């Protein structure tokens, strides 16, 4: 698969790999995808009392596109409010990384991961 330079850079030097304490009530965890489909993303967002995302970490099982998409969204969400982060669309991720058509689902998964992490945070904090 021929990948863009931006994508390869995120794959080779992924940003924000790691885990946070999933029991911390300021941390929202999203786990999306399935091993049988070949991709699983775990995205964690640390959100402060003003609803601003202070930190983001990811771990991804998947192809190069999936890893790069996850890395990219951790960069994008940092400093954004929950509302702003929820507006990130898969199409922007796909465009930024020049994802090949068969890999568009990786960007969809990354968008789902953001939504899922925020939902987990809101559930924990009864928002």
């Amino acid at each position: 698969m021929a990948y863009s330079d931006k994508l390869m850079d995120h794959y080779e030097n992924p940003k924000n790999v790691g885990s946070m304490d999933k029991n911390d009530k300021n941390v929202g965890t999203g786990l999306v995808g399935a091993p049988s489909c070949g991709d699983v993303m775990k995205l964690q967002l640390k959100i402060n009392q003003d609803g601003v995302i202070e930190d983001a970490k990811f771990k991804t099982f998947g192809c190069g596109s999936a890893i790069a998409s996850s890395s990219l969204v951790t960069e994008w969400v940092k400093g954004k409010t929950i509302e702003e982060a929820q507006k990130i669309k898969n199409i922007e991720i796909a465009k930024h990384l020049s994802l090949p058509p068969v890999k568009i689902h990786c960007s969809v998964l990354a968008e789902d991961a953001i939504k899922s992490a925020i939902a987990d945070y809101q559930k924990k904090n009864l928002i």
Partner: protein
Amino acid sequence: MLKFPIYMDYQSTTPIDPRVLDEMLPYFTEKFGNPHSRSHSFGWEAGDAIEFARGQVADLISANPKEIIFTSGATEANNLAIKGLAHFYKSEKKHIITVKTEHKCVLDACRHLEQDGFEVTYLPVDTCGLLDLNLLENSIREDTLLVSVMAINNEVGVIQPIKDIGGICRRKGVFFHTDAAQAFGKIPLDVDAMNIDMMSISAHKIYGPKGIGALYVRRKPRVRLEPLMNGGGQERGIRSGTVPTPLVVGFGKAAEIAGMNMQEEYESIKRLSNKFCAGIVDSIPDVYLNGHKEARWPGCLNLSFAYIEGESLILAIKNLAVSSGSACTSASLEPSYVLRALGVEEELAHTSIRFGFGRFSTEEEVDYALELIKKSVGKLRDMSPLWEMAQEGIDLKSIQWSDH
């Protein structure tokens, strides 16, 4: 000195052996005649060369040179064998038996015949990739025309018991075809001792040129085929079209070299492959070898690296030219049907990589590959949520995944 990327995809194709190329070159230039021209020395010279090469190919499988039909490769040979036989005998018998792990061209040719009113049985394999001989024997019916089973599998390297299968087919009076694209020149094959009626062969898998192969077609008892192409009636009327002299000359030479060095080359490949496999399994946990542990061609190792998706590993080890059973390298996003036929779970099928070893593989390359793989697997597992969960003792099967 290592040269990058290191070639580890010998099942896909092989580089041409310099000795083969040397034999071919004059037939592109001064000896350019059409081998079917009977009226001048250009034609005679080319004609003699293809007959010599026919003998070299036949010798390697103990066949008569007259039983070798040159084709464009193994795909054409498989199509010719299956469709050519079926079309010739269609008024007598309408059932074909093959195996789920066959190459796509065999399966696709069979599917095509199903549309023409043939019935095809696709036999399963066990978790090691081997065919059950009792099941095969019991599947043969009154109207079974052909059994087609490959000798060595291209994805997992499993060797089927060809001699036993040939024996069953002869006893039951059905034709036996084997796709030997991965086996010809690598393991001993004898068409009489193994009761093989047709065998597909490719040159570029044995350090010969691409675009040439052959179908062995038995003369006694005679196997009759309807040609796929009509034309000048070359190759005993079975395969019309000018035989490409330089390619055939190269094919013959490649077969001769393979025959000369077979045992020696087998031992050397086995030694490298064993060293590689042991190096991986001893230092990386949760790695699984797909396919039978003994009944295998050592030059093909298909390994599943649990918790790492295959394509991401291929990207990480980009100094190694390998191939993957993972979906993500293909356009279809479906994991390998061969691994699925072996009962490899989809999770693991996504993590599989095929490593190939061949004539030009070196120990230095194996050592480099081992280090690179160990490092890359570590890095990717550190990035894998599945690995993290497995280390925490979470059973991944207990999780409700969101399939997409």
